[in-house]
C-alpha cells in the first residue's frame, strides 16, 4: 500500500469515526471539538485530491471561523456551571432515516463505477491557486460578486438579529 493510499484511508477513517462520535456524544462542547476533527480530516482528503486551495479554505473558514462562532454560541447559551448535556429524541426514526439514506446511496454508487479514465493525465499542473484566482476574476465573476453581496447581507443581518438593544415601542 502506498503512502498516499494510507493517508487517504487514515483521513477517511478519522472523518467517519469523528462524525459517528458526534452523533453519539451528549456534550455540546465535545460535539464542536469532534466537528473540528472531522473538518480537518476532510481537509486532508482535499489535499490528496489536488484541491489545495479548497483545503486551505476549509481550514481557515470552517475550523477557524465557523467553529469559533459556534463555540461562542455554545458558551452564550450555557446558563449554569455544569456542562450542557443534550437528550436525544426520535432515535428510532433518525437511525432508520440515516440507514435508509446510506443504504440507498451505497446501492446507487455500486451500480456505477467511477474510475479515473487516465491516471497520468490528471492534475499534473503546478499551481491550482493561480488558475483559481484567474477564473474567479473571469469565468466566475458574477458568482464571486454575488457571494460577496450575500456575505455582506448575512453579516449585517446577523448583527442586527443578535443585537440586544431594546427599542422603545
Amino acid at each position, binding site marked *: 500500500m502506498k503512502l498516499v493510499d494510507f493517508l487517504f484511508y487514515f483521513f477517511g477513517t478519522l472523518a467517519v469515526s469523528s462524525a459517528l462520535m458526534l452523533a453519539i456524544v451528549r456534550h455540546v462542547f465535545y460535539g464542536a471539538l469532534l466537528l473540528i476533527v472531522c473538518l480537518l480530516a476532510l481537509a486532508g482528503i482535499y489535499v490528496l*485530491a489536488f484541491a489545495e486551495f479548497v483545503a486551505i479554505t476549509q481550514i481557515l473558514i470552517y475550523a477557524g471561523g*465557523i467553529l469559533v462562532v*459556534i463555540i461562542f454560541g455554545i458558551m452564550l447559551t450555557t446558563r449554569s456551571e455544569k456542562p450542557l448535556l443534550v437528550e436525544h429524541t426520535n432515535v428510532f426514526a433518525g437511525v432508520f432515516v440515516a440507514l435508509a439514506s446510506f443504504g440507498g446511496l451505497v446501492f446507487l454508487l455500486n451500480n456505477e463505477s467511477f474510475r479515473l479514465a487516465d491516471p497520468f493525465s490528471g492534475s499534473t499542473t503546478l499551481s491550482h491557486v493561480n488558475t483559481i484566482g484567474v477564473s474567479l476574476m473571469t469565468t466566475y465573476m458574477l458568482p464571486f460578486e454575488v457571494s460577496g453581496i450575500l456575505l455582506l447581507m448575512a*453579516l449585517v443581518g446577523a448583527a442586527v438579529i443578535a443585537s440586544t438593544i431594546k427599542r422603545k415601542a
Partner: protein
Amino acid sequence: MMFPVDHALIIAAFLFSIGLLIVITKRNTILVLLGIELLLNASNLNLVAFNQLRPGTLDGQMFVLFVIIVAVCEAAVGLAIVLQVYQYFQTSIPDSVSEIKE
C-alpha cells in the same frame, strides 16, 4: 496516483447519513446546526471527488468555494437566531419553541 473516487463517494454518503441522523435526533439547536454543517461537507467532498474525474478542469473546486461561502452565511445568521431565541425563551431546545406571540 489513483485517487479512489468510489471510496471518497462512500465516505461522503456516510457523512451525509450521519448529518441527517444528527439533525433528526439532537435536542439542541446548536448541534442541529453542526449536523447541517456536516451535510454541507459531505456534498463538498462529493464535488471534490467528482472533480477528479475531469482532469484539467476546476469547476468542482470552484463550486466548493461558493458552497463554503453560503455555509458561512448560514452559520452566522443561524447562530444569531439561536442567541435571540435563547434570550427570549431561555431554552435552546427546538421543540419547546412553539409560539410566536409576544
